[in-house]
Protein backbone atom coordinates (compact mmCIF):
# COMPACT_ATOMS: atom_id res chain seq x y z
CA UNK A 1 0.00 0.00 0.00
CA UNK A 2 1.15 3.51 -0.78
CA UNK A 3 2.41 5.68 2.09
CA UNK A 4 1.15 8.80 0.44
CA UNK A 5 -1.12 10.15 -2.23
CA UNK A 6 -1.62 13.35 -4.16
CA UNK A 7 -4.73 14.86 -5.68
CA UNK A 8 -4.04 17.04 -8.73
CA UNK A 9 -6.25 20.00 -9.58
CA UNK A 10 -5.69 19.45 -13.30
CA UNK A 11 -7.03 22.76 -14.56
CA UNK A 12 -4.81 24.83 -12.24
CA UNK A 13 -1.65 23.26 -13.72
CA UNK A 14 0.42 25.32 -16.19
CA UNK A 15 2.75 22.46 -17.07
CA UNK A 16 5.88 24.24 -15.76
CA UNK A 17 7.44 20.92 -14.75
CA UNK A 18 9.05 22.08 -11.49
CA UNK A 19 7.38 19.27 -9.50
CA UNK A 20 8.68 16.71 -12.00
CA UNK A 21 12.22 17.84 -11.10
CA UNK A 22 11.82 17.55 -7.33
CA UNK A 23 9.70 14.42 -6.76
CA UNK A 24 12.19 12.14 -4.98
CA UNK A 25 10.61 8.96 -6.37
CA UNK A 26 10.20 10.26 -9.93
CA UNK A 27 6.50 9.49 -10.33
CA UNK A 28 5.45 12.81 -11.84
CA UNK A 29 5.44 13.65 -15.55
CA UNK A 30 3.67 16.08 -17.84
CA UNK A 31 0.86 14.35 -19.72
CA UNK A 32 2.30 13.72 -23.18
CA UNK A 33 -1.06 13.87 -25.00
CA UNK A 34 -3.72 15.37 -22.73
CA UNK A 35 -4.42 19.09 -22.51
CA UNK A 36 -6.24 20.84 -19.67
CA UNK A 37 -8.82 23.61 -19.96
CA UNK A 38 -6.06 26.24 -20.15
CA UNK A 39 -4.32 24.39 -22.96
CA UNK A 40 -1.31 23.13 -21.03
CA UNK A 41 -0.04 19.58 -20.70
CA UNK A 42 -0.87 19.06 -17.02
CA UNK A 43 1.14 16.99 -14.57
CA UNK A 44 0.13 13.38 -13.95
CA UNK A 45 1.19 10.64 -11.55
CA UNK A 46 2.61 7.51 -13.14
CA UNK A 47 2.73 5.17 -10.11
CA UNK A 48 0.72 6.41 -7.15
CA UNK A 49 1.77 3.31 -5.09
CA UNK A 50 5.25 4.81 -4.86
CA UNK A 51 4.14 8.18 -3.46
CA UNK A 52 5.63 8.88 -0.03
CA UNK A 53 3.44 11.87 0.78
CA UNK A 54 6.54 14.05 1.23
CA UNK A 55 4.76 17.09 -0.29
CA UNK A 56 7.88 18.20 -2.22
CA UNK A 57 5.69 18.73 -5.28
CA UNK A 58 3.28 20.95 -3.34
CA UNK A 59 6.11 23.01 -1.84
CA UNK A 60 7.62 23.98 -5.21
CA UNK A 61 4.35 24.37 -7.14
CA UNK A 62 3.64 28.02 -8.08
CA UNK A 63 -0.03 27.28 -8.73
CA UNK A 64 -1.17 25.24 -5.71
CA UNK A 65 -2.08 22.26 -7.86
CA UNK A 66 -1.44 19.54 -5.27
CA UNK A 67 -3.26 18.38 -2.18
CA UNK A 68 -1.08 15.82 -0.41
CA UNK A 69 -2.11 13.00 1.90
CA UNK A 70 0.03 10.71 4.02
CA UNK A 71 -0.73 7.61 6.01
CA UNK A 72 -1.50 8.47 9.63
CA UNK A 73 1.31 7.59 11.99
CA UNK A 74 0.16 4.86 14.33
CA UNK A 75 1.47 5.54 17.82
CA UNK A 76 3.24 2.58 19.28
CA UNK A 77 1.75 1.67 22.63
CA UNK A 78 4.24 1.65 25.47
Amino acid at each position, binding site marked *: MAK*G*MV*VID*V*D*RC*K*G*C*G*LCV*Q*VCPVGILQLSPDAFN*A*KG*YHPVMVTEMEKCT*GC*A*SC*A*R*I*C*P*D*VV*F*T*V*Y*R*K*KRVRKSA
Partner: protein
Amino acid sequence: MSVTVNIPADMEVVYEYPRSMNKVYTHYCPGCPHGILHRLIAEVIDELGIQDRCIGVAPVGCSVLIYKYFNVDFVEAAHGRAPAMATGIKRTNPDKIVFTYQGDGDMAAIGTAEAIHAANRGERLTTVFVNNAIYGMTGGQMAPTTLPGMVTTSTPMGRDVRLAGYPVPMSEILAQTKGAVYITRQMALDLPSIVKTKKAIKRAFMAQMADLGYSSVEVLSTCNTNWNMSPWDSMVWAKEHMVPTFPLGDFKMTDEVRALKVR
Protein backbone atom coordinates in the same frame (compact mmCIF):
# COMPACT_ATOMS: atom_id res chain seq x y z
CA MET B 1 -14.15 20.37 -13.75
CA SER B 2 -15.03 18.81 -10.44
CA VAL B 3 -13.55 15.51 -9.48
CA THR B 4 -14.51 13.43 -6.49
CA VAL B 5 -11.66 11.50 -5.00
CA ASN B 6 -11.93 8.90 -2.32
CA ILE B 7 -9.32 9.43 0.33
CA PRO B 8 -8.56 6.24 2.27
CA ALA B 9 -9.56 6.52 5.93
CA ASP B 10 -6.01 5.89 7.13
CA MET B 11 -4.65 8.95 5.25
CA GLU B 12 -4.41 12.47 6.62
CA VAL B 13 -3.89 15.69 4.73
CA VAL B 14 -0.33 17.07 4.87
CA TYR B 15 -0.67 19.85 2.30
CA GLU B 16 -3.78 21.74 1.26
CA TYR B 17 -4.78 25.05 -0.31
CA PRO B 18 -3.88 27.96 2.02
CA ARG B 19 -6.93 29.70 3.50
CA SER B 20 -5.43 33.14 2.90
CA MET B 21 -5.34 32.57 -0.87
CA ASN B 22 -8.31 33.00 -3.15
CA LYS B 23 -9.21 30.02 -5.31
CA VAL B 24 -8.55 31.76 -8.61
CA TYR B 25 -5.99 31.28 -11.35
CA THR B 26 -3.01 33.62 -11.41
CA HIS B 27 -1.88 35.37 -14.59
CA TYR B 28 1.79 34.48 -14.06
CA CYS B 29 3.82 32.63 -16.67
CA PRO B 30 4.22 28.88 -16.04
CA GLY B 31 6.90 28.26 -13.41
CA CYS B 32 7.17 31.88 -12.23
CA PRO B 33 8.35 32.04 -8.59
CA HIS B 34 5.87 34.86 -7.89
CA GLY B 35 3.33 32.05 -7.46
CA ILE B 36 5.59 30.17 -5.03
CA LEU B 37 6.14 33.31 -2.96
CA HIS B 38 2.43 34.16 -2.83
CA ARG B 39 1.83 30.67 -1.52
CA LEU B 40 4.56 30.97 1.13
CA ILE B 41 3.18 34.30 2.37
CA ALA B 42 -0.35 32.85 2.52
CA GLU B 43 0.91 29.83 4.48
CA VAL B 44 2.69 32.15 6.94
CA ILE B 45 -0.44 34.29 7.38
CA ASP B 46 -2.47 31.12 8.01
CA GLU B 47 0.03 29.72 10.49
CA LEU B 48 0.29 33.00 12.40
CA GLY B 49 -3.50 33.34 12.46
CA ILE B 50 -3.42 36.96 11.22
CA GLN B 51 -5.65 36.71 8.15
CA ASP B 52 -8.18 39.18 9.62
CA ARG B 53 -5.49 41.68 10.65
CA CYS B 54 -3.37 41.68 7.50
CA ILE B 55 -3.22 44.45 4.92
CA GLY B 56 -1.02 43.98 1.86
CA VAL B 57 0.24 46.76 -0.38
CA ALA B 58 0.60 45.76 -4.04
CA PRO B 59 3.41 47.02 -6.28
CA VAL B 60 3.65 47.79 -9.96
CA GLY B 61 5.33 45.00 -11.89
CA CYS B 62 4.24 41.49 -12.77
CA SER B 63 2.72 41.13 -9.30
CA VAL B 64 0.51 44.18 -9.78
CA LEU B 65 -2.61 41.98 -9.52
CA ILE B 66 -1.52 40.27 -6.28
CA TYR B 67 -4.58 41.68 -4.48
CA LYS B 68 -6.79 39.35 -6.52
CA TYR B 69 -4.95 36.28 -5.29
CA PHE B 70 -4.98 36.84 -1.53
CA ASN B 71 -7.94 36.43 0.75
CA VAL B 72 -6.73 39.35 2.88
CA ASP B 73 -7.21 43.11 2.51
CA PHE B 74 -5.03 44.81 -0.09
CA VAL B 75 -4.43 48.21 -1.60
CA GLU B 76 -2.58 49.10 -4.78
CA ALA B 77 0.27 51.62 -4.66
CA ALA B 78 1.82 53.70 -7.43
CA HIS B 79 5.08 52.26 -8.77
CA GLY B 80 7.65 52.09 -5.94
CA ARG B 81 5.45 53.88 -3.42
CA ALA B 82 4.26 50.81 -1.49
CA PRO B 83 6.39 51.55 1.62
CA ALA B 84 5.00 55.11 1.79
CA MET B 85 1.42 53.90 1.49
CA ALA B 86 2.07 51.10 3.97
CA THR B 87 3.50 53.65 6.41
CA GLY B 88 0.26 55.63 6.39
CA ILE B 89 -1.83 52.51 6.83
CA LYS B 90 0.27 51.14 9.69
CA ARG B 91 0.49 54.45 11.55
CA THR B 92 -3.27 54.92 11.46
CA ASN B 93 -3.97 51.24 12.17
CA PRO B 94 -1.16 50.09 14.44
CA ASP B 95 -2.97 46.84 15.30
CA LYS B 96 -2.89 45.70 11.65
CA ILE B 97 -0.08 43.66 10.13
CA VAL B 98 1.00 45.53 7.02
CA PHE B 99 3.27 44.15 4.32
CA THR B 100 4.52 45.27 0.93
CA TYR B 101 5.33 42.92 -1.93
CA GLN B 102 7.77 44.50 -4.37
CA GLY B 103 9.85 43.57 -7.40
CA ASP B 104 13.39 44.79 -7.96
CA GLY B 105 12.26 47.40 -10.48
CA ASP B 106 9.71 48.62 -7.96
CA MET B 107 11.99 48.58 -4.92
CA ALA B 108 15.52 49.18 -6.26
CA ALA B 109 14.78 51.67 -9.06
CA ILE B 110 11.78 53.98 -8.86
CA GLY B 111 11.06 53.20 -5.20
CA THR B 112 14.55 53.27 -3.70
CA ALA B 113 13.91 56.40 -1.67
CA GLU B 114 10.63 55.16 -0.18
CA ALA B 115 12.17 51.81 0.77
CA ILE B 116 15.27 53.25 2.43
CA HIS B 117 13.36 55.91 4.36
CA ALA B 118 10.70 53.47 5.57
CA ALA B 119 13.49 51.22 6.86
CA ASN B 120 15.38 54.13 8.35
CA ARG B 121 12.27 55.36 10.16
CA GLY B 122 11.86 51.89 11.57
CA GLU B 123 8.30 51.60 10.30
CA ARG B 124 6.62 48.49 11.67
CA LEU B 125 6.32 47.01 8.19
CA THR B 126 7.34 43.81 6.45
CA THR B 127 8.57 43.77 2.87
CA VAL B 128 8.91 40.77 0.59
CA PHE B 129 11.31 41.93 -2.12
CA VAL B 130 11.40 39.70 -5.19
CA ASN B 131 14.66 40.14 -7.08
CA ASN B 132 14.61 38.61 -10.56
CA ALA B 133 17.27 40.95 -11.98
CA ILE B 134 14.94 42.32 -14.65
CA TYR B 135 11.78 44.31 -15.40
CA GLY B 136 9.47 41.38 -16.06
CA MET B 137 6.14 43.06 -16.72
CA THR B 138 7.31 45.58 -19.31
CA GLY B 139 9.20 43.07 -21.45
CA GLY B 140 12.52 42.23 -19.85
CA GLN B 141 14.44 45.51 -19.72
CA MET B 142 17.51 46.06 -17.56
CA ALA B 143 16.83 46.69 -13.87
CA PRO B 144 19.32 48.21 -11.39
CA THR B 145 19.79 44.61 -10.21
CA THR B 146 20.66 43.20 -13.65
CA LEU B 147 23.98 41.32 -13.54
CA PRO B 148 27.05 42.77 -15.29
CA GLY B 149 27.14 41.45 -18.84
CA MET B 150 23.56 40.16 -18.65
CA VAL B 151 21.64 40.48 -21.91
CA THR B 152 18.23 42.13 -21.60
CA THR B 153 15.95 43.79 -24.15
CA SER B 154 17.49 47.19 -23.29
CA THR B 155 21.07 45.90 -23.00
CA PRO B 156 21.32 43.68 -26.09
CA MET B 157 25.13 43.63 -25.79
CA GLY B 158 24.98 42.84 -22.09
CA ARG B 159 24.94 45.28 -19.14
CA ASP B 160 27.98 47.52 -19.46
CA VAL B 161 28.88 48.69 -15.94
CA ARG B 162 30.73 51.70 -17.32
CA LEU B 163 27.45 52.96 -18.74
CA ALA B 164 24.88 51.48 -16.37
CA GLY B 165 26.71 50.98 -13.09
CA TYR B 166 26.64 47.93 -10.86
CA PRO B 167 23.82 45.80 -9.44
CA VAL B 168 22.26 47.61 -6.48
CA PRO B 169 22.77 45.62 -3.25
CA MET B 170 19.45 46.59 -1.70
CA SER B 171 19.62 44.35 1.38
CA GLU B 172 23.17 45.44 2.22
CA ILE B 173 22.02 49.07 1.98
CA LEU B 174 18.87 48.59 4.07
CA ALA B 175 20.91 46.78 6.73
CA GLN B 176 22.81 50.04 7.36
CA THR B 177 19.70 51.79 8.63
CA LYS B 178 19.08 51.97 12.37
CA GLY B 179 15.33 51.39 12.02
CA ALA B 180 15.68 48.02 10.33
CA VAL B 181 15.62 45.03 12.67
CA TYR B 182 15.69 42.12 10.22
CA ILE B 183 17.17 42.28 6.71
CA THR B 184 17.84 39.01 4.96
CA ARG B 185 18.48 37.69 1.46
CA GLN B 186 17.13 34.26 0.57
CA MET B 187 16.35 32.50 -2.70
CA ALA B 188 13.37 30.50 -3.96
CA LEU B 189 15.31 28.41 -6.45
CA ASP B 190 15.04 24.85 -5.12
CA LEU B 191 13.21 22.94 -2.42
CA PRO B 192 15.54 23.59 0.57
CA SER B 193 15.79 27.29 -0.22
CA ILE B 194 12.01 27.59 -0.53
CA VAL B 195 11.62 26.07 2.94
CA LYS B 196 14.22 28.51 4.33
CA THR B 197 12.56 31.45 2.60
CA LYS B 198 9.26 30.62 4.24
CA LYS B 199 10.93 30.62 7.64
CA ALA B 200 12.50 34.00 6.93
CA ILE B 201 9.14 35.46 5.84
CA LYS B 202 7.61 34.13 9.04
CA ARG B 203 10.34 35.72 11.15
CA ALA B 204 9.84 39.02 9.35
CA PHE B 205 6.10 39.01 10.05
CA MET B 206 6.74 38.01 13.67
CA ALA B 207 9.18 40.92 14.05
CA GLN B 208 6.36 43.26 13.06
CA MET B 209 3.87 41.52 15.36
CA ALA B 210 6.35 42.06 18.22
CA ASP B 211 6.52 45.77 17.23
CA LEU B 212 10.29 45.63 16.77
CA GLY B 213 10.82 47.64 13.56
CA TYR B 214 11.22 47.29 9.82
CA SER B 215 11.88 43.88 8.28
CA SER B 216 12.61 42.87 4.71
CA VAL B 217 13.11 39.52 3.03
CA GLU B 218 14.82 39.78 -0.35
CA VAL B 219 14.22 36.64 -2.39
CA LEU B 220 16.33 35.78 -5.44
CA SER B 221 13.89 34.71 -8.12
CA THR B 222 13.69 34.17 -11.87
CA CYS B 223 11.89 35.43 -14.94
CA ASN B 224 12.06 32.41 -17.19
CA THR B 225 10.02 34.10 -19.92
CA ASN B 226 12.29 37.11 -20.36
CA TRP B 227 15.44 35.11 -19.64
CA ASN B 228 14.38 32.73 -22.40
CA MET B 229 14.86 29.56 -20.37
CA SER B 230 12.70 26.76 -19.05
CA PRO B 231 11.43 27.31 -15.48
CA TRP B 232 13.83 24.74 -14.00
CA ASP B 233 16.83 25.87 -16.08
CA SER B 234 16.22 29.46 -14.99
CA MET B 235 16.39 28.36 -11.35
CA VAL B 236 19.65 26.50 -11.93
CA TRP B 237 21.02 29.53 -13.81
CA ALA B 238 20.04 31.93 -11.03
CA LYS B 239 21.73 29.79 -8.37
CA GLU B 240 24.91 29.78 -10.39
CA HIS B 241 24.93 33.39 -11.59
CA MET B 242 22.91 35.52 -9.18
CA VAL B 243 24.19 34.21 -5.84
CA PRO B 244 27.82 35.37 -6.38
CA THR B 245 26.58 38.93 -6.96
CA PHE B 246 23.80 38.76 -4.35
CA PRO B 247 25.16 36.62 -1.50
CA LEU B 248 22.59 34.97 0.73
CA GLY B 249 22.34 35.57 4.44
CA ASP B 250 21.06 37.75 7.25
CA PHE B 251 22.49 41.24 6.86
CA LYS B 252 20.85 42.48 10.00
CA MET B 253 19.13 40.62 12.81
CA THR B 254 18.75 42.28 16.19
CA ASP B 255 18.90 40.18 19.35
CA GLU B 256 15.12 40.56 19.81
CA VAL B 257 14.49 39.22 16.30
CA ARG B 258 16.94 36.39 16.87
CA ALA B 259 15.10 35.46 20.05
CA LEU B 260 11.77 34.99 18.21
CA LYS B 261 10.74 31.36 18.20
CA VAL B 262 10.02 30.61 14.54
CA ARG B 263 8.52 27.20 14.02
